[in-house]
């Protein structure tokens, strides 16, 4: 058992290093977001009160919103508040931002996970199938399909889904979100069409990455060694190829999750889903800066955490990364 200790130690050191870089990234990101949004033109107080407001009224509102204190103080209280879960009050709706975001997150997060699961479930078999039949009809067919999957705009695809499955077949509702209080099944049911529309292009990209990563691995010496042991071509692919091909695939999965979390705004519009994307869109139009700041920061946080998880997954897949520090 003497062997496990240095290995554990290496893994722990690796995780600590990644964690440190996670906190540094968060600090830098929060500063950048704050500065960028502060320099954007438009004063929320005057925007809320309209063009004819008295300067005294504007000043009073500014004081009430906490806009009159020095910028660095506002940054610190913003960051401090976020750390304790308090994102402040929305300028427009006068409700806690935390509540607004939480409600939206309950739609966007399950949707992103749902779409990612679908895309992975489609992409893995498709990529493996194509790679194991390189240059044959099956490969060409799958690659053609992925080409199409990337090319089709997903809002159009979403509308087609609505047309077929909601309007003609009436299997799903055409839009809106049932809410989780009616049960898991009802919630998932109303997210299915949006998840499929989001998953399609992602699955197509992931399948191509999976295929090319596997093809790279197939040329490696250890694949020939495995054949010389008596493994069939298929066994070699599954037992020795797949895990070695996972690194580039994990990278793409990480990127896709971050994208799905916020990038679903068009799909949210098509299906009238109360998600994060729409919240950002509405807040920007209303100059509700504090909501914009908070949502953007939350998304950055999600991206960084996902990257951290991907880094840990790399180390779990590849023992060489654990010992290299």
């Amino acid at each position, binding site marked *: 058992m003497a*062997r*496990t200790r*240095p290995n554990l*130690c*290496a893994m*722990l*050191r690796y995780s*600590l290093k990644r964690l440190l870089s996670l906190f540094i990234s968060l600090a830098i990101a929060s500063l950048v977001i704050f500065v960028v949004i502060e320099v954007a033109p438009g004063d929320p107080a005057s925007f809320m009160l309209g063009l004819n407001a008295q300067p005294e009224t504007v000043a009073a509102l500014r004081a009430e919103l906490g806009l009159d204190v020095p910028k660095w103080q506002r940054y610190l209280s913003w960051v401090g508040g976020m750390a304790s879960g308090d994102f402040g009050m929305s300028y427009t709706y006068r409700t806690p931002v935390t509540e607004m975001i939480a409600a939206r997150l309950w739609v966007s997060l399950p949707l992103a996970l749902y779409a990612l699961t679908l895309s992975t479930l489609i992409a893995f078999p498709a990529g493996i199938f194509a790679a194991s039949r390189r240059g044959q009809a099956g490969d060409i067919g799958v690659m053609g399909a992925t080409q199409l999957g990337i090319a089709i705009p997903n809002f159009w695809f979403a509308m087609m889904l609505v047309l077929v499955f909601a309007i003609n077949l009436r299997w799903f509702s055409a839009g809106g979100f049932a809410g989780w209080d009616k049960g898991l099944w009802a919630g998932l049911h109303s997210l299915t069409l949006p998840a499929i529309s989001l998953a399609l292009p992602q699955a197509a990209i992931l399948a191509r990455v999976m295929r090319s990563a596997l093809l790279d691995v197939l040329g*490696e*010496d*250890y694949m*020939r*060694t*495995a*054949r*010389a*042991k*008596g*493994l*069939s071509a298929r*066994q070699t692919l599954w*037992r*020795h190829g797949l*895990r*070695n091909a996972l690194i580039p695939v994990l990278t793409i999965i990480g990127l896709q999750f971050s994208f799905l979390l916020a990038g679903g705004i068009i799909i949210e519009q098509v299906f009238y889903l109360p998600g994060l994307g729409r919240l950002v869109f509405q807040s920007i139009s209303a100059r509700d800066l504090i909501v914009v700041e908070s949502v953007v920061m939350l998304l950055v946080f999600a991206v960084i955490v996902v990257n951290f998880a991907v880094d840990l997954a790399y180390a779990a*897949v*590849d*023992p*060489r990364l654990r*010992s*290299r*520090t």
Partner: protein
Amino acid sequence: MTLLDIQTLSLAIHGFPVLQDVSLSVTKGEIVAITGESGSGKSMTAMAVMGLLPKGARTTGRIMLGDRDLLATSERAMCGIRGNDIGMVFQEPMTALNPVQTIGAQVAETILIHDRTTAAKAEDQARDMLARVGLPTDRFPLSRYPHELSGGQRQRVVIAMAIARHPRLLIADEPTTALDVTTQAQILDLLRDLARDFDMGLLMITHDLAVVADMADRIVVMQNGGIVEQAPTGALLTGMQHPYTRMLFAASSHRVNLPPAPAPEPLLEVSHVSRDYRLPRSRVFGAPGTFRAVDDVSFTLQRGERLGLVGESGCGKSTLTRAILGLEPVQEGSITLGGDPVFSGTRPNLAVRRRMQVVFQDPFGSFNPRHRVERLITEPFHLLTDPPRKSARRDAIAEALRAVGLSPDDAHKYIHEFSGGQRQRIAIARALIIRPDLIVLDEAVSALDVSVRAQILDLLADLCREYDLTYLFISHDLSVVRSVTDRVLVMRDGKIVEDGPTETVFSAPRHPYTKTLIDAVPQLPDLAALRRSDTHA
């Protein structure tokens, strides 16, 4: 009893003939060596036996293993034969193992594919097998990953995988080519012992006649996809019926004729140089350790001298080379060329850099494939403040190409139009073109076939006569160093353990390590003595 019988095997890949009428056999317990240069078809013969030929391969003839024709055996049945009846060991131990699986799992896999046993029993067998090849569990637990082992240790794991099922036939394709001489000797001993203990037939494929001369029972010489000569080892070496066999033998032990070195005048002075690398931390918050790759090294290279630097992988010769070329700073000591430091302050000293050039090992990876030869060999011109232009540039290109035995017309070709030996000539032309004071040849002939290697070594000797070359010749191949250097340094664990005239060091080594190295080099037998004993017998 004949174990493997290859009968008139011919092979074409996409219509291109690769093997013609190859017939050879291996009996139980016999060691048969196939030798020849690259492209002779020796590896393809092995892959044909394994049934692992590339797509588009068409074969005729028969490959009999016992009473079964392997060419007529289905892929499914071949899976039952590979690893079970025939084991195979490959050339590159560094890449032959799956990097994400433990060595125990990889050895146990061979057993589990062919035997319906439990994982625990397979693991026990894997442990025994690893111990048998010299990796006992107490020092090399099954949970090790390949990257935690050295090249020689990895090759032992590959061998354990190949013999785990006690196959009747073991094929070893250049099993020691990528290894150091002392490791090579150990692996060859291991293979020989295993063949005897398991009563296996061993088919060894090698480009190096010396490796198999005192090990093989029979030698098969191949050229251009056909067998030119095969006979029992003694008879083949004394007889050598075919001119190609004679040429191979002569090229392997080729000696060049170096002109005498001019009067000593110090050129490169390396004085008390040490180079440290940071090691990964051993504890989570522990201070990182350091590894001293080069440890207090001092020597002087005289103008016109041909100096050799030998040592095994990890001895620090590459680190020392990088320091000499000014590519990396050193922690202690100084390196000067003609009195000027190669590294000044925090960056390489350009004035010195333009007086040194280097030729690397890999003739295939060291050129940009998108540039023409004229651009490739004039790259060192960017070091000059006033590089030759127009006709002067053309003349310089023509002269450099002529000097290395190529035609000035070759300047307009791309690198893929040249063979490995020609590429190495171009690499030398690139080094010569600015007439450097010092050329560093870093394993410059290691990747070449013996006949091509002999030509390149002759070229070096010619260039010494013509240009008064000074070079530092770095190699793991002691026989080559012996033939092209005046003086040799032997390096081990970052230190220079022996420094002396080449002939003296080789004939009367003082340091025990030098002795070990020289003893480990496979020797071609003395032909005259062989012939004498043959006639007396």
